[in-house]
């Protein structure tokens, strides 16, 4: 149960953060394109 809580907690903040980083990286790609 504790492990599930931990995974859920990190997923709740990690997934949006990963999405934001991915979206930013697609913009950054223009710098090297």
């Amino acid at each position, binding site marked *: 149960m504790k492990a599930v809580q931990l995974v859920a907690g990190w997923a709740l903040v990690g997934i949006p*953060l990963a999405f*934001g980083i991915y979206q930013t990286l697609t913009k950054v790609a*223009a*710098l090297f394109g």
Partner: protein
Amino acid sequence: MSWLDRDRTIAPPGFNRWLIPPAALAVHLCIGQAYATSVYKTALVAHFDASLVQIGVIFSIAIVMLGLSAAVLGTWVDTNGPRKAMFVAALFWSGGFLVGSLGIFTDQLWLVYVGYGFIGGIGLGIGYISPVSTLIKWFPDRPGLATGMAIMGFGGGALIASPVSTALLRFYDPNSGAANWVANGDSVGKLFLTLAVIYFAYMMFGAFTIKVPAAGWVPDGFDPSRVRSQALVTKNHVSAKNAIRTRQFWLVWVVLFCNVTAGIGILEQAAPMIQDFFRQNDGNSLVSATVAGGFVGLLSLANMGGRFIWSATSDKTGRKNIYMVYLGVGTLLYLLLALFGPSTTALYVILAFVIISFYGGGFATAPAYLRDLFGTFQVGAIHGRLLTAWSAAGIAGPLIVNSFLDAQGAPGELTAAAYQPALLTMVGLLIIGFVANLFVRPVHSDYHEPERSLVGATTGEARA
């Protein structure tokens, strides 16, 4: 409302402390939206038929309120604990969006000032400092890592809010397919309502996940005597009231002010600056608007990553040493940028990337530096007072850069040479910060709290 009290948030035995960083991140990712206001800035200019400056005031009020509320309410946050603080921060932050949306729907710009700027700004201040003290108590072995993770969220919040807000504006505006589309006011109002609901829910996750450690709790295998043996790391405690009477507080204030002012100088002007640095004799820049947008994105990543990486590194190097790097190496990098930045875009991008990572690192390492100097007793409140340096830098940084640039020519016609006076001024500021940091010494025992006033107040549930 006793379920918000500090006493109700004491962690049971066996509680996993790694649940605390996501709780803190949940709050910081939400309030980090403050750095994504450019998404709807043009839309608000069109909706209110206002100038860019008039709309920019919304953000300025919010940042000033962040510093003021963190300074004034810091002690309240330390006394009442993280859950109540996060709950109140959520009420203010979401309430700010609600009042702001009312201002947009009724065409009253002053209501947006009051809503997003004033009310939301208070939410920013309380939210920013709410998890700091608790994180430091859960991670006495790695305070830099812990606060770096949370404060990284403030940088990351804009990365999330920016694409999500754009998508929502497109969803709410039926004309979003038009060429040169600018979102209408109605869609921005609906965006504010949506963000109010989403952010409130997320911050509630943070508020109801966060817990304070029980009295006397220490992590497995942690030996407090090792921490105490390090130079500058005190085993004593200083109250917030006394901390601002010490020379150390004001030296760190100057350090943060100089570091933030220098960073904001680049961040605020990032997109036009890279284009101006590579402007040809014919007036055209080698750097397109799209590439400049990519550069801004890269700096956002540097800002976010620097907060985590440098702050975590400070646990190994010591806080004073890492600020020597931010300010000393930062001075050299700024000098290189001013003198050799226009030679190649690669050099320019690398220098700016590292400089902005130091800017983020300066923010994230500050709470741990305060913990080292003043102990954990009221470190959240002391951190709140320190954030006035951010408010001051938020005014000084853009003022310095814009004043120099205004004197050099019109936007769109500037070249790299026009930036040299501003950049060299930043070099001077970083040197002042470096010297201030050199003078930081342990706090005199006259300012230490007597042991009897600290019973139960520095570990565990109290004052977390």
